[in-house]
Structure formats: C-alpha cells, structure tokens
C-alpha cells in the first residue's frame, strides 16, 4: 500500500496583510535592537550616506555654476526634482536593501533557507534587512524639497499635500520595481551584479527632466527602465498647474503594475532556480 496520509488540517487563520505587518514589525524591532550593538558601523555608514548626498549636491552646484538652466528648467525647479527623487528613493533603500545580498546568497546556496518557511519568500527575504541609513537620505530629500518649494512659491493646500504623498509613493514603486528586477537577474545569470550596479547608477538620471530624451530612448526610459517615473512625471503633478500630462495621472496605476511585474519576475526566478550551489 502506498497511500500517503494527510495531516489533519486544523482550522488555522489565514496569513493576511495583518499577519505580515505584525511579523515585519517584530523583525524590525529585533533588528534595530541588534543594530545598536554595531555602533561603529552605524556611524561610518551614516557618514557614507551623508557623503553620497553631499557629493550629489556638489555635482549639481558645479553643473549650475556652468550652465544656468537645463531644457528650460531653472535652478529651483531642478532642486525640486532632486529633492523629490531623494524622497522617492527612500523606500527602496530602507525596505528593499537586501536585494543587494541576493546574488551572494543565491550563488552560495544559502538562499534556500528562505524556501522552507510557510510564508512568502519575497517578504521573508526583504524583511531581513531594514536599512536605517535610508532615513538620512529622507531628511536630505525633505530639506531640499522644502527649500525648492518655498523658492518656487507653490501654494500649500490640502489637495497639494495629498497629491504630493500619493505621487511620492507612486514614484518610489518604480524604483523598487527597477531594483527588484535587476536583482532577480542573478537567478538566471551568474555574476550579474553589474546589472544592479548600473541600474543604481541610472537612478542618478532620475533627477533630470525626462524631456531631454528623444525618440526610442524616451520610450525606453519611460516604459522599459522607467526612470522617468522616479521623479519627472510624478513631480509634474505638483509643479504644473494646468497642463499635467496624461502619463502623470497614469503613474499610480503604472507604478503598481511595474511593482507587481517585478515581484512576479523575482518569484519566477526563485521557482526556476536550481539550488545546485552546495
């Protein structure tokens, strides 16, 4: 007889959004606690984060010292874009930073441990790292955005604030999607670390108005590698008063779509991966 008996499944509650939120919160609290014990690391990383942002500013200032405007965008509007992009890049830095470790774990075979738990592999993997340094970037971004905002003189109304929050979230989805997809390439391509590196460098171009791109490349940077959505289109919702482009209004839906596709791609990688590394 070769019957295999089934376990009596007692009625367990479903693992829904609330379950995942509570697990994430618990891991986060524990993680922060243990991070306190690496003070030197925290200090050096924070210095590193500040340096990156400062050097970004210096590049920006040098550029504007030589050139008064770019494609009709003046100094303050460019700063607005810059600040907007910094804030939009915070979630990917804070919550999805473990993507950078994916290729090492996949190559060494350690990745397999994420597949033995009755929870979502993507969630489990990402929950392991919360990057505090992202908060420094957030502070930088908010400072820049407020400074530019005041200098441009955009009125502050509840509707503008709602739009700002909505489109910042939208923008961040695109960057998360780009990094997920870039990281997931390591399931197929050995030594694909460079894809992530270059995608991360692409993000530096998100802070420039995307109407500088022409032809095929405008389409490429809008719909394939959507850096145009990381700052340009979403921020137009605030900067422009009347003629907001259609793509801006489509951004939230597109953001969700891109995120969903990148998630599916990532999970497909998990499924296709051979786990031969041992």
């Amino acid at each position: 007889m070769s019957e295999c008996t089934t376990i009596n499944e007692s009625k367990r509650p479903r693992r829904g959004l609330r379950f995942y939120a509570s697990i994430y919160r618990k891991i986060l609290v524990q993680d922060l606690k243990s991070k306190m014990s690496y003070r030197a690391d925290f200090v050096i990383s924070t210095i590193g984060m500040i340096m990156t942002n400062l050097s970004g500013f210096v590049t920006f200032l040098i550029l504007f010292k030589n050139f008064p405007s770019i494609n009709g965008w003046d100094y303050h509007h460019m700063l607005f874009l810059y600040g907007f992009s910094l804030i939009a890049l915070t979630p990917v830095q804070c919550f999805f930073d473990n993507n950078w470790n994916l290729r090492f774990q996949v190559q060494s075979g350690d990745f397999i441990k994420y597949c033995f738990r009755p929870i979502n592999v993507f969630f489990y993997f990402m929950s392991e790292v919360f990057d505090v340094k992202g908060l420094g970037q957030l502070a930088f971004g908010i400072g820049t955005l407020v400074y530019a905002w005041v200098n441009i003189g955009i009125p502050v109304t509840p509707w503008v604030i709602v739009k700002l929050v909505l489109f910042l979230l939208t923008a961040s989805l695109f960057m998360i999607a780009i990094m997920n997809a870039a990281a997931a390439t390591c399931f197929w391509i050995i030594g694909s670390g460079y894809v992530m590196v270059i995608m991360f460098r692409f993000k530096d171009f998100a802070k420039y108005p995307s109407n500088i791109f022409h032809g095929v490349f405008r389409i490429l940077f809008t719909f394939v590698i959507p850096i145009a959505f990381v700052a340009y289109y979403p921020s137009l919702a605030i900067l422009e008063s009347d003629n907001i482009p259609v793509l801006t209004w489509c951004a939230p839906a597109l953001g969700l779509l891109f995120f969903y596709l990148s998630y599916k791609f990532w999970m497909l990688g998990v499924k296709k991966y051979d786990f031969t590394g041992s």
Partner: protein
Amino acid sequence: MENAIVMKNVCKEFKILNRHEGLKGSIRDLFSRDYKTIEAVKDVSLEIARGEIIGYLGPNGAGKSTTIKMMTGVLEPTSGEILVNGLVPYKERKKNSEHIGVVFGQRSQLWWSLPLIESFKLLRDIYMVPQKDYEEMLELYRSLVDIEPILHKPVRQMSLGQRTLSDILAAFLHNPPIVFLDEPTIGLDVSMKDKIRSLIAGLNEQKNTTVILTTHDMGDVDALCKRIVIIDEGKKIYDNDIEHLKSYFGSYRTLRMRLADDTWEERLIDESREDVMDVIMKKQKEQKIKDIQLQEISTEEVIKKIYEGGNRS
C-alpha cells in the same frame, strides 16, 4: 501502516553547459550551446512510515540533497510523483512547509544577529503556534538538553555545535510531523554529536516525528536509524533494515591474527566464498599464529564497500 512520505518513480534532471578546458576553451564556451543533461535522481521510489527515523545515505554527489530538496518543495521533479503529508510539495510549497522542519547542512536558518529566544518567538508567530504548545515544546527541550546557556545568545556568537543544536530545536519548534536533517553532526565534537543524537531520538520518541536523516557519520546511523536507504549515482541501491545491511554483500567478518612478531594482521572475509578456518590454516602453514580474533563487520565498512563497489543488486 501510515505513510508520511511516498515517492513514485521520481527522476530529476539538470541541464548544464559543457565547459572546455584552457583559455581557448573559455573563449569557445562564450558562444557554445553545448548542454549536457545530468540525471541527479533516477527513478527512485520510496515509502516512509510515520514515526520512522530513516538514514538516507550515499556518497557525495549521489543525489541525496536533490531528493530532499524535492521533498521540501524547493525543486520540482522532472517526472514521477511525490506526496509529503498527502501534499504535492512543489505545488503547495507554503502549505507543505507548515508541516515540515528542515535543517540544511551547516547553513543556519535562524536570524543571525538575534538571540535564540527571539528567533523562537518569531518562528512561533510565523508558524502560528499556540502559546500553550510553544511553552510545552520549550519545556520538552529543557528536559532533553540544557538550553539555558544558548537561549539568550545571538546566533552569530555561537559555536558550530551550539548553532546546529539551535537549528535542530528551531526545526522541531512547530511540532512538524516530518523533519529533514541534512548532515546535522558534521564537524562536531564527540560529546556534541552525542547530545544531538539523544536529542533527536528523544524528540522522535516524544512527538512521533518522522525524521529523514542524511549523514556520512555511521555513528548517527547506528545510534538512530532502524532503516536505511542508500542512493548512489541517483539510483536507490539499498532500502532495508540496518541488520540486513551487514549481509548485503554476503556475510562479512573481520579476521585478526597476531603473528609471531606480535603484529596484528587484518583480513575482511566473505564467508559465502571462503571459510574462516581455511584462511587460518593456510596462514598457519606459513608462520605461527599466536592469537585470533573474529569481529563482526561495522556498518561503516559495509557502507564503504557498497560505495566502492557501485550498485550490485
């Protein structure tokens, strides 16, 4: 008898690129589409009853890990059927992992920087273990092994032995009906090995947990397993009691003879082919024998013979 795991004619193939040697070969590989198929597991059928501890043995690269990866739902078999707790593992990976525990080699699955007790609490929440069951399990752990020294220690500060112990405890925490242990005693000292063996035996007895144990250490097998399955080059070559194993190749015994110069000479004798007395008599014609010992063959030696001899059915 109730079955925990059933495998029917399971095969698993991998496709890998044929690599060429040398610098020129590397450049050629850049454009090559020359793949070869490797059969890691060939037509393996297996039934494992509830509460059994199975020793799953085989030389390195025999397909042990691949089989376990298929049973845990991480890999999809190329053909054949697998049922684990009545579920098809790769189709329902999440549901399946609810009812299994896994310790994979020396890779810790615990949160590296957290104290063990915090990892336990997280696992309790992830597996939705009721608080009462969780506490009972911790009680059971305390009765089997001294967990106090490691409970509040971050995993990264533990010794290898403590880490393995922690991983095993974590694998049993949600009281799964099946636990997979992949080389749990590798690299450990004698006393730690002992501790871990008695822990596994204790948990199996108390919770009637089915344990699939892969190992290269025959001490583990002798201490824990009644039944062993041996796989070599992807094929199952032995599946029976450990007692039968010793007569697998015929009945072997080791004959030790102390010679005139006080050195011991050892010979492995297959009693189905030659007679022990004949050997002694032959030897005695050449030189004087002062002492004789006859020993049963150890599991280790049989296994060695099986690995070396390939698959003789």
